[in-house]
């Protein structure tokens, strides 16, 4: 069986802030169409890793290849245009916009209107608005957000805001989706909803997903492969079963028996 294509190849990246090393020599590959989960105790460097892939941080060492292209030096907005999209651990929505506008704002890279054509709002600019509205409405439909379409997102509940954020990340039509703790702080029903959405996105669209999650039961259920980080270093990588029985992972989470 042929090895599936590599979507993302993180090559030996190191990131430090002053004297603190957030990541040291992390190396891994995410294959096209898989759910790849990163786990690790608090402060292990998981979010720093996503921020580096996404272009918010620039690692001092190493390279990041996306679809075989070196994107290490690209600014964040260019990476988004190539198809890297994300959600945030602490929700980072456009608070004063409606759900609809939040999603439409994420269509930015696919739209063409500029100051002049937008000002006239006639002909192509108008048709473009309608065409992209259809795409966004499909996502609203998929994530069951019809009722909050025109609500200002700042007024929504935490669980719904997380869902709008997922919708916004999807509206970018990415080929790699980075999800930073999409289920943090949710109750069981909300978690199950979110897990169902993630699996649906993965199965229906064949989306490649890089996930950070703390809920081990859930991680083991939905991921194809798991990588564990501790103190900025990779300590293990493998299938959920391998990770579950890996001694270093158990040690990182539970500490060593005396």
């Amino acid at each position, binding site marked *: 069986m042929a090895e599936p294509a590599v979507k993302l190849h993180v090559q030996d990246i190191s990131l430090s802030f002053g004297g603190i090393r957030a990541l040291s020599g992390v190396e891994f590959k995410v294959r096209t169409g898989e759910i790849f989960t990163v786990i690790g105790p608090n402060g292990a460097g998981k979010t720093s890793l996503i921020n580096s892939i996404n272009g918010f941080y620039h690692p001092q060492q190493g390279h990041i290849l996306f679809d075989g292209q070196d994107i290490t030096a690209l600014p964040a907005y260019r990476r988004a245009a190539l198809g890297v999209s994300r959600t945030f651990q602490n929700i*980072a929505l456009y608070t004063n916009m409606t759900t609809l506008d939040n999603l439409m704002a994420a269509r930015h890279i696919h739209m063409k209107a500029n100051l002049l054509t937008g000002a006239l709002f006639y002909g192509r600019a*108008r048709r473009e608005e309608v065409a992209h*509205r259809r795409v966004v409405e499909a996502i609203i439909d998929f994530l069951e957000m019809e009722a909050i379409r025109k609500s200002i997102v700042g007024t929504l509940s935490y669980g719904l805001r997380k869902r709008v954020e997922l919708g916004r990340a999807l509206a970018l039509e990415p080929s790699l989706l980075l999800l930073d703790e999409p289920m943090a702080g949710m109750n069981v029903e909300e978690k199950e909803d979110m897990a169902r959405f993630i699996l649906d996105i993965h199965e229906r669209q064949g989306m490649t997903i890089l996930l950070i999650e703390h809920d081990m039961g859930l991680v083991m259920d939905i991921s194809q492969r798991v990588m564990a980080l501790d103190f900025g270093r990779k300590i293990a990588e493998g299938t959920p079963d391998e990770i579950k029985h890996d001694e270093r992972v158990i040690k990182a989470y539970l500490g060593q028996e005396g």
Partner: protein
Amino acid sequence: MSANIRPSGVFDVRYEQDISLNRTRGDKLLSSGLFLLLLLLPLLTVQGPFGVNLLPQLWIGTIIRIAIFAIAVQGLNILIGYTGQISLGHAAFMAVGAYSSAIFVRELGMSFWVALPLAAVFTGVVGLIFGLPSLRVKGFYLAMASLAAQFIIPWLLRYPLEPLTNGSRPLEVPVPALFGISFAHENAMYYIIIPLAVFMMLAARNIIRTRVGRAFISIRDNDLAAELLGINVFAYKLQAFFLSALYAGVAGALMAFESNSISRDSFLLDRSVELLAMLVIGGAGYPLGPLFGVGFVNLLTQNVIPSLIPPLNDVLPRLLPFINPVNIFAALSPLLFGLALVIFLIAAPRGLAHRWEIFKISWKIRPYAN
């Protein structure tokens, strides 16, 4: 326009309808009716073609002034209300528009119709240059950096450019003409300024509800997320500065050609602060905010405060015998204006336009909820 209100039970059935400004036939009639009414007003004045005295001539000047300031404040609204970048140098950009258009006509012999758009774009470019610090600084620090424009530009106009600008003395501006028709009378200028103001308000509204405007608002609400979701934040900040200054430039040029004379003193820091106050009172981040703000401030400074001053002038010198009565009189107008502003910031911090939005929503769900 978005001013239109709808009763309960009227729904949008297509996306085209949902995104258009006039969503129903009634909306369309109301908007075009209001616009036509606005265009008819000069015909009803005593100096109009029919010489009927149905409307005080004073009103025409007032509407023109409101329209000009509404354009300027809409520019500020784009920058502050929508993009979240603070500028305290807006009056300086009005000066650039006023002086550059006047100089294009006086020195280069251009017609008003060429000079106006050229001056607008020129002011936009000047605004873009003063927007460069926004790459590095935000919030209060950007406000301080923007003050640079407010001091450098009037200084340039006063000293180095004196041969062109007449320095601190007023500069005379020629009267615009088209096919032999002179626009010397304010009733004639009305027909240049009002359609242009309506067009610029609509253009701003359209920019805000399409791609570029959503990028502006994204930057205001969360600039980090905007960058990570594909928006070139710096490029769009600069576009906001360009557009904002362009609006100020048009307003300044219209002011110059309306009064046929410009003076550096009408574009100093107090004017910038006044524009900011108008935006805050009207409602920053709402398309109609500038219009409400300019209208309200105009009412306040031209009608309410002057009518309050004589009675206060009778009472105050007796209450404060240790102050020279002449000083009290001079201080009353800014004092009352400041008081009104403070009351506004406490009672309606999001401005008049926000109240209007609330009214529209309650009208739409009436009588099913309150």
